[in-house]
């Protein structure tokens, strides 16, 4: 039963990540999502310090706002300060994450608490939330429900506004020219990323969220020619990573999040090889066709 819950939770994270991640990598915003996933930490800690229990809705909202703040700060440093994008991202998220770690330490109080847990936290909340057990594998159904709700919101928004996301991702100039606001959809997307990050933080920590936002979509990107197929395929890869990752972690007694990310990487490697092979075959068949035609 436990394993089913864990795999389901992982799968939910994978699906949320896949849907958003496809848009992210097509917009070349992969690293911004990495930044957001780290930068929400202080938001999460503060939300916890303010509220007493897992009042998840407020935490989602609050930390989601931090994600938007991060996006805004990055833009601010980039536009007003003329700081190059990669540096704007790097400076912003490390600063926020550092603050988050310091807050975790203060809040946790005692000297012997592991700040390491923040990163790969199935046990992320041990110092903060007494409900989650320290053995690192138990996730209350609460996380499942929260993630389910987040997934619902994502599916709703993305399907309602699919055209708008599609167009602003593919051709922002044309979108602007037809009267769409590219920045509105940018912020909507980043807010969804923040919310997903926060909802997943509780269960699987920072690294897995980023891995699920980038790796399965990248794998799908190599094999598909339609955005809708890319999203679906990415979800499949993500869920596969969740399932096999769980069993891998169980087998060698390691971090589940780490294992899921590892499997996602392995899948990518395999897909990469397949894509290269298909490419070669296509090139050869094209060559054959050309020689056939010229020899006629």
């Amino acid at each position: 039963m436990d394993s089913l819950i864990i795999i389901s939770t992982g799968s939910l994270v994978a699906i949320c990540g896949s849907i958003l991640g496809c848009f992210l990598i097509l917009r070349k915003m992969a690293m911004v999502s990495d930044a957001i996933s780290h930068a929400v930490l202080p938001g999460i800690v503060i939300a916890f310090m303010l509220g007493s229990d897992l009042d998840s809705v407020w935490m989602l909202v609050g930390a989601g706002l931090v994600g938007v703040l991060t996006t805004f700060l990055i833009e601010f440093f980039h536009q007003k300060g003329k700081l190059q994008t990669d540096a704007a991202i790097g400076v912003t998220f490390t600063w926020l994450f550092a603050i988050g770690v310091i807050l975790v330490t203060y809040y946790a109080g005692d000297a012997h608490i592991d700040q390491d847990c923040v990163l790969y936290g199935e046990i992320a909340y041990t110092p903060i939330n007494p409900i989650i057990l320290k053995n690192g594998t138990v996730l209350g159904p609460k996380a499942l429900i929260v993630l389910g709700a987040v997934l619902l919101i994502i599916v709703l928004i993305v399907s309602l506004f699919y055209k708008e996301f599609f167009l602003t991702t593919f051709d922002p100039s044309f979108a602007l020219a037809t009267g769409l606001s590219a920045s509105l959809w940018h912020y909507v997307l980043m807010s969804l990323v923040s919310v997903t990050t926060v909802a997943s933080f509780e269960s699987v920590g920072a690294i897995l969220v980023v891995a699920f936002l980038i790796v399965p979509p990248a794998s799908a990107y190599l094999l598909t020619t339609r955005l809708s197929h890319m999203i679906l395929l990415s979800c499949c890869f993500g869920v596969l990573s969740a399932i096999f990752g769980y069993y891998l972690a169980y087998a060698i007694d390691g971090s589940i999040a780490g294992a899921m990310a590892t499997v996602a990487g392995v899948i990518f490697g395999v897909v990469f090889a397949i894509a290269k092979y298909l490419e070669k075959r296509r090139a050869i068949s094209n060559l054959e066709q050309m020689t056939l035609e010229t020899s006629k």
Partner: protein
Amino acid sequence: MIQQVEEPVLEIHDLTVSYDKKPVLWGIDLSVPKGAIAGIVGPNGAGKSTLIKSIMGLTSLSSGYVKIFDEELEQVRSRVSYVPQRESVDWDFPASVLDVVLMGRYARIGLFKRPRRADIEAALFALKQVGMDKFKTRQISQLSGGQQQRVFLARALTQQADIYFMDEPFAGVDAATEKAIIQILKKLAEDGKTVIVVHHDLQSVSTYFDWVIMLNLRLVASGPTDKVFTPELLEETYGGKLTLLTEVGELMKKGQYPTREKQ
């Protein structure tokens, strides 16, 4: 030689565009008549793309205004079509030819709805016009440069606009595509539409355009091709070096001076 027009479809008044307070277009004043096929020419860095972008509201103006059909762009967006440069888009994007062409109908479809039968038919019709209907399910990365340009044109055609702005539509396309595109533009003009094109190749100007706009940081000339496309004006556009202008521009950037004082 700047000829103004009585009832222009496009009117630009004292338009200045600056990047970081340095003007890249100075005080442009021009107007274009209905049904013209106008070419914008000038050396690299002259501001041709900037001009189109500022008309389309993609860049902000430091001064002046633009009127299309005697209105602000916002009021007439549905009558205006924009074809950006091909490089502005990542052609590895997982989309089919039909997907891209349908984008031209999005504004018409509205926020929450999906493309309907009528939209798809309009898209297919446009594809037929550019000779790409057989490619409708092809993924866009598999297209040649000329084919990509045709797809962009088809997208623009589905908008059924009254004025079309195109940024370097002939760059890097094969001769057949170029011919096909020009045919379509001529047909549009015959139907009373206006087409304004940023162009890079001086050889074809007299055959393609009946109105020429010559730009180099400022407007050198604007008017009917036979009047304006002369060696003297070409010399001025491509040859003249406005060092004073550039230096003053640099000073404005350095000191961050406002382009227009608030009265």
